[in-house]
């Protein structure tokens, strides 16, 4: 290209921007492996001390397992319901499709504080504050739009003719789901389940209201600790949460590869 200077400028800008974007992530991970009793950078020596505190402390452990349990509940509900809803969107002529979809995306649009307070209010009336199933259900609401957005694009890649063929060969509707649709959409379903899990695992505001004393999740414990003081164990917990995000993104990247490989082999068959 003739204009080399703007291109070089852009490259420099993007490089700097990417470094700044990754800086907070990298810093937290480094701090987590530090040895000091206070936040110091760079750490004078490396240790697993704060991870030992995190994994050795019964309150942090309780928070961890509460988070996992809630995230599993939310993930199962959101993925199952989201899958069927996405299927309905892709395969049927529902009237006012766009309007219905924008209704189902409302959980990401309505400020979480309002959602959380309303859910808290209802939980209070029904005696559900601190109930992990209720929190899981509330998280499923927030995770549903994510599942829906991922599966809408993934199900569009499933050939309707394959379903027609299965039906005409005598397969039941249930059989079409278990033998055709779900296997073909499986990488997408798994991806959406992973992100639903992550959405719940990282959710703070709803948990903050609904947790009570019994069901503190990891983000709630971080929040409570941050209000008191910035203790280094938070860096270890944060690094752990970043690790979970990393695993989810890696698995998702793998699922994408599977999906692409399948698409390629499908087009070779034709």
């Amino acid at each position, binding site marked *: 290209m003739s204009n080399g200077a*703007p291109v070089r400028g852009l490259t420099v800008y993007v490089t700097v921007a990417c470094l700044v974007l990754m800086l907070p992530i990298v*810093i937290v991970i480094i701090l987590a492996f530090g040895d000091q009793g206070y*936040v110091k*950078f760079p750490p004078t020596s490396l240790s697993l001390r704060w991870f030992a505190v995190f994994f050795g402390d019964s309150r942090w452990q309780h928070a961890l397992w509460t988070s996992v349990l809630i995230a599993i509940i939310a993930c199962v509900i959101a993925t199952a319901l989201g899958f069927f809803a996405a299927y309905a969107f892709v395969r049927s002529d529902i009237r006012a499709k766009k309007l219905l979809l*924008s209704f189902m995306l409302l959980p990401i649009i*309505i400020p979480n*504080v309002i959602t959380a307070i309303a859910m808290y209010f209802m939980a209070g009336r029904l005696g559900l504050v601190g109930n992990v199933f209720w929190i899981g259900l509330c998280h499923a609401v927030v995770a549903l739009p994510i599942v829906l*957005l991922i599966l809408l694009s993934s199900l569009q890649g499933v050939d309707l003719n394959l379903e027609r063929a299965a*039906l005409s060969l005598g397969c039941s509707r249930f059989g079409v789901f278990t033998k055709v649709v779900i296997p073909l959409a499986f990488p997408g379903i798994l991806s959406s389940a992973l992100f639903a899990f992550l959405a719940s695992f990282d959710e703070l505001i709803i948990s903050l209201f609904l947790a009570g004393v019994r069901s503190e999740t990891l983000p709630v414990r971080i*929040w409570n600790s941050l209000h008191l003081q910035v203790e280094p164990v938070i860096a270890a917990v944060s690094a752990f949460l970043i690790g979970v995000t990393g695993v989810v993104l890696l698995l998702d990247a793998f699922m994408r590869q599977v999906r692409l490989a399948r698409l390629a082999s499908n087009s070779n068959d034709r």
Partner: protein
Amino acid sequence: MARSNKFGDGSVFILPAVLLLVLVLVAPLIWFFIQTLAGVGTAAELLTQAWSIITSRAVVTALATTNWISLLVTLLVLVISYPLAYYLANRQGLRFTLVLFCIIVPYFTSIIVRTYSWMVLIGRNGIINQALLSLGVITEPLTLLYTKTGVLIGMVYVLLPYMVLTLYATMKAIDPNLMRAARGLGANGFYSFTRIYFPLSVYGVVSGSLIVFIVAIGFFITPALMGGPSDVMIAMLIERSVEIMFDWSGAAIMSLFLLFVTLLLYGVYYRVTDVRRMMGA
């Protein structure tokens, strides 16, 4: 279709998800608003109280702060994201993957973790101050945390990926041949950008800005942890009325107002964009 006679057309499969949203989102919202607002008294009393809350000093200040911070954040995010999205849309291979990685990883990291990290970075004894002091760039530590600047840094960081991904989706659809044609016809880089590329990307600019602004006005975690006493946004005021003052009707009135504004903006977003493309999905 033969299929629809036998099994229906599949639209029933949407019902469980709709039911979940109605029971766990819509019902709590309606219950909350009706119960708390009915407790205030007659319609006239309710209106009087709503008016006195919305025009109270605390709420007016919080609304002004919310509006100002959200506008600034949207503008900053737009300016910072545009070149990033442009780069993503025009590169392939390793460079593309690397830049996308740097945007996606923070995007999917817990907001509380991202906020905590910035608190550690920009605090009074934070890493940036330590570094600048030891380099001799400054003699006094900078006050960034617990100020409006701190809130801006944190919110821009959290909201940046929304904008980049939205802009990227729009820019990816711009035919690169148009720019080549313009150049071939003698237009310089600046001219072809301002007359061709930018106008074609306006769609992404508008929908990205709308979504960032919508999310920003309801922001709670980052301003609550990184702001100072004067940086109270409306969502924080709502949380405080419930958690500290147990003022449910006050919270309901402010929530109703915020919800109304949010849905109004979402209506505009719905008009101008394809909701399926939300968050660059």
